[in-house]
């Protein structure tokens, strides 16, 4: 017996509302693009925010949506950075946009190969395994100095104009437009992905792997898939760094970078895609402001913020911000649709 069309309509509306662009999101991206003209003197830091945001978005895909914690995400970032820098230096792929995509593929290959290491075991195992992979790569880059430049970094990289037209200038004007555009495109793709049946299955795998497999989901295959995608994102973020600075050094693989990344995502909050971007904005501006204030001791303040966030707990922070979020909720389409179709409050 088919259900009444109105019930199907309501269900469809509700499912679509999950994925609809909220006014606040539109505002966020308008502001980001407006900064191309309005914040011309901050383009260097905005460029850094853009690739760091992309890097954190990549971590959010595996941590926030699939529950895979990593302390070695810099492995993919680093592979992307070196790939892009080497392609430019030896003029193998001269055009930066194409080189960036190749770097993403290289990182994805590494992500796929190492994904099988994170399938089994607890969070602790995963932390250690991911950390280990990044350390191994760093040492490999160090060992093969003839290729990577070793401890001095890869010198003499010149980046050709984007698409053969746009020169990457030293003020970061082109760099910001480039990084923001790449970030936006990859964000839209990630947004589609997490709102798709595949994205829903990832959340189910994170929420209850036992049940996920009991409805016919191959848990391992899904984890491999998202880990590979996330690695590609991280690799592209690394490529953006290498291309906008025309440099790659061992530091791209460093433990600090992986740990900072986790911090960025925790500041912004995992599991809603914007956490990494907001975290990157807060982290970079905080770092910028604090390092001007106390050039030597700024990590102290960053550390303090981390401790406060973890101790106070995100849940409690989210209850402090509840009134704001409620206000935002009133503005959202999802609430409007609910109000006009289901009226849950009137039911009781």
């Amino acid at each position, binding site marked *: 017996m088919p259900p009444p069309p109105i019930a199907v309509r309501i269900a469809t509306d509700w499912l679509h509302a*999950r994925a609809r662009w909220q006014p606040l999101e539109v505002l966020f991206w308008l502001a980001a693009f407006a900064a191309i003209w309005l914040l011309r003197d901050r383009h260097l830091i905005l460029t850094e925010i853009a690739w760091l945001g992309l890097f954190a978005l990549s971590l959010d895909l595996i941590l926030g949506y699939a529950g895979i914690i990593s302390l070695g995400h810099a492995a993919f970032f680093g592979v992307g950075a070196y790939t892009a820098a080497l392609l430019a230096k030896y003029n193998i792929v001269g055009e930066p946009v194409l080189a960036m995509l190749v770097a993403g593929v290289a990182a994805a290959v590494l992500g796929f190969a190492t994904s099988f290491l994170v399938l089994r075991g607890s969070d602790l195992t995963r932390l250690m395994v991911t950390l280990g992979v990044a350390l191994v790569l760093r040492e490999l880059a160090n060992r093969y100095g003839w290729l990577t430049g070793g401890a001095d970094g890869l010198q003499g990289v010149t980046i050709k104009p984007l698409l053969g037209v746009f020169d990457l200038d030293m003020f970061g004007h082109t760099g910001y437009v480039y990084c923001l555009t790449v970030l936006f495109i990859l964000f839209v793709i990630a947004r589609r992905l997490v709102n798709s049946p595949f994205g829903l299955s990832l959340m189910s795998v994170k929420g209850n792997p036992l*049940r996920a497999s009991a409805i016919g989901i191959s848990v391992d295959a899904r984890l491999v898939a998202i880990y590979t995608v996330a690695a590609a994102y991280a690799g592209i973020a690394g490529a953006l760094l290498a291309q906008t600075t025309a440099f790659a050094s061992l530091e791209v693989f460093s433990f600090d970078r992986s740990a900072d990344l986790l911090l960025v995502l925790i500041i912004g909050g995992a599991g809603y895609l914007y956490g990494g971007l907001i975290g990157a904005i807060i982290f970079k501006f905080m770092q910028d402001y604090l390092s001007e204030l106390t050039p030597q001791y700024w990590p102290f303040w960053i550390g303090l913020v981390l401790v406060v966030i973890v101790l106070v707990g995100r849940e409690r922070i989210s209850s402090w911000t509840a009134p704001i979020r409620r206000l935002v909720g009133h503005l959202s389409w999802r609430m409007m649709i609910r109000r006009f179709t289901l009226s849950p409050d009137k*039911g009781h």
Partner: protein
Amino acid sequence: MPVALETINLIKRFSGIVASNNVSLQIAKGARHALIGPNGAGKTTLINLLTGVLKPTSGRILLDGEDISGLSTHERVRLGIVRTFQINQLFNDLTPLETVGLAVSERRGQGLDWWRIVGSRPDLVSEVVEILERFNLNDVIDKRTAILPYGKQRLLEIAVAIACRPRVLLLDEPAAGVPEDERHEILAAVAALPSDVTVLLIEHDMDIVFSFADRISVLVNGALFVEGSPDEVARDDRVKAVYLGEEVADA
């Protein structure tokens, strides 16, 4: 009567303990088969063997005559062996709409579809809504599973399994822990399961077993002890002795 699910000399040992001892069980197509037995009889182990959570030490499992012993859990689900859980195993952060929608999209092989937005296939949503209405979940489709009343969660357990369109459905104590006043809803849902679905019910509550089953197997110490129609099992003195002893003594 053709056999839907069959085990042949199934043995499972855990470091010295024999949890399943040479179990050869046949479940007829379309049957309402109940599996009973005292605590520790090995009912849960048997379910885990049937669904592929555990690998048998020896023996075989056949679905419609095909050996499925080597397949993993999710592969068996695809072939139609679906279970519910005695203790709710649901997705707390998802709504019933999303949960059942996920199960249906996976069954249709659309689980890797990563570009299409959830809910953009009208026939899929229609099927999901139909299932939710059948299990009386239509008033909570957009509520987080974690905040649903326990009875609704138990209904969702069964609804998710039905969304996988099982050939053989393993029901593990569907009414466990449900308050008395919500119980009839679960039992009605179980009674209304499609007749072409073969059901194996694991249950402690004898009222449910005898009102539901047309065949009963009694498991004791990991081995198949007695099997027969409800009447035969109810009259069997050995069953009374090991299992129904107290109830008979009370009567």
